[in-house]
């Protein structure tokens, strides 16, 4: 019963975006909505890591930017069709994340945050300095072919087309995260999160599942990065900078990572809060900082936590 309700919810969510897009005049708002959807998928990946592994990453923006850089650098060489190149960039990013995961998931809590921050900044530095390949601080512009995945690229570079595509991808990602959490793998990783030693004594290996969760969260983030690069046809080191990782983290925590859809909500709220604040004041950094402190101290379960508490009140 509850199951079919959830599926109904996913179907409704998937339909809301394309429907809404019809009523919003193309332009700024739709473009913002498309970008907010990228941010939401990004936050979904970071929230997934918090929920399944219990660890906070300060370097996930690297996995957002990396596939974009890979596509931008390899595209002019005309080695393979764009679709294959996209898939290869995703696979490569996930493989790298898995390898990194095998190392970093050995440390816990605070040290994990510092490690991921350092790895992310290392890649950022590399992207700014390795000018011959990355274009340094200026970034790279992509010359995309006319069609991708059977769709005209032009369609995907218009706010309306991209918003609808990104929204559907986002819904699919949410379904994947939800299914994972209910699978034996989801149970196992949550058990490891709460009591790793006991899980080892029950007969499980704990390193591989944790590394796999790290890689899966990187995949979600990489998908967001791919959509972004497809839409903007541009990638620059700003996308990898640690403040980008920090923003993703704030979105996930603001929304609340205890439920799968929390980070999505956080992503949209954060994105529009930032833009609304940006229109009135230049102090959005402070606003975000204060919001983060408030949520961390007073509402550790985020907006989703608040909403669930409201609803379950008698």
């Amino acid at each position, binding site marked *: 019963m509850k199951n079919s309700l959830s599926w109904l919810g996913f179907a409704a969510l998937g339909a809301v975006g394309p429907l809404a897009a019809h009523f919003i005049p193309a332009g700024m708002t739709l473009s913002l909505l498309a970008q907010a959807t990228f941010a939401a998928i990004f936050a979904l990946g970071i929230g997934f890591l918090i929920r399944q592994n219990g660890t906070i990453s300060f370097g996930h923006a690297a996995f957002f930017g990396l596939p974009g850089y890979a596509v931008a650098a390899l595209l002019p060489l005309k080695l393979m069709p764009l679709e294959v190149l996209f898939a290869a960039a995703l696979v490569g990013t996930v493989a790298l994340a898995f390898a990194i995961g095998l190392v970093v998931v050995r440390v816990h809590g605070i040290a994990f945050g510092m490690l991921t921050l350092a790895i992310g900044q290392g890649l950022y530095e590399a992207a700014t300095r390795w000018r011959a390949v990355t274009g340094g601080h200026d970034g790279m512009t992509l010359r995309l072919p006319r069609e991708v995945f059977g769709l005209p690229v032009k369609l995907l570079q218009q706010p309306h087309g991209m918003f609808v595509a990104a929204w559907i991808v986002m819904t699919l990602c949410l379904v994947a995260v939800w299914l994972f959490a209910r699978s*034996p793998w989801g*149970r*196992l990783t*949550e*058990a490891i999160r*709460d*009591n790793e*030693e*006991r*899980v*080892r*004594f*029950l*007969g*499980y*290996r704990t390193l591989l599942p944790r590394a796999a969760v790290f890689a899966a969260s990187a995949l979600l983030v990489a998908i967001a990065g791919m959509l972004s690069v497809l839409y903007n046809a541009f990638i620059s080191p700003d996308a990898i900078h640690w403040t980008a990782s920090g923003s993703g983290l704030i979105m996930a925590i603001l929304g609340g990572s205890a439920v799968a859809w929390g980070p999505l909500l956080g992503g949209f709220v954060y994105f529009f809060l930032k833009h609304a604040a940006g229109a009135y004041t230049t102090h959005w950094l402070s606003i975000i900082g204060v919001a983060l402190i408030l949520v961390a101290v007073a509402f550790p379960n985020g907006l989703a936590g608040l909403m669930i508490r409201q609803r379950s009140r008698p």
Partner: protein
Amino acid sequence: MIALAATGITKTYGGFTALSDVSLSVEHGEIRALIGPNGAGKSTLIDALSGRNPCLGRVELMGADISRLTPGKRRRLGLSRSFQKTSIFPRMTVRAQIELAARAVDGSDGMDVLDEFDLRPLADRLAGDIGYGDQRRLDLALAMTGQPHTLLLDEPAAGLSFEESKRLAAHLRDIAARRGVTVVIVEHDMDVVFAIADTITVLQLGQVLAEGRPDDIRANPDVVRAYLGSAA
């Protein structure tokens, strides 16, 4: 037949020697109690047998050397343990964690263990929400899932009521006698120890002080002086 044998177990922390050349040999289906004052090395020995910490020496399970195996591999070979501090998954339901434990060892759903430990009425509650005595039983049930043939228990009666301790003792007696499960138990509750142990090993300062049948241990003047005192 020897189920569990340890030879020359030595463990040092920095300059402190927690266990010094301890050997132990436990028969199949035997209940072996480890007793001794705090800091004697009882828990350290359980940790060494279960593979929690690296140590010197050799551990054999059913004749096979398991000294270098991970805790998980030992568990899959049938050597299971419980923990002194209740070690469960508070945010999972009772049923879900028993299933998790069962899946690691065999393909079963572990529901027989739920019944064996009277946990079925609590199956769908979160483990963090049930009472302390129930949590202790769940801890034991996690260790017993998948029918391990050798069980290491670290103070399973700690914090239990008199009634609960009595039930625990009867249960352990039963699984050893009926199913031939080998049990090594660390316990401070002497009523439980003398009620169930076939053999008692007394540890003091990381060494074996005495070993023998409960009556002999009770009468051993060294043991009485070092640990049991006049109470026993």
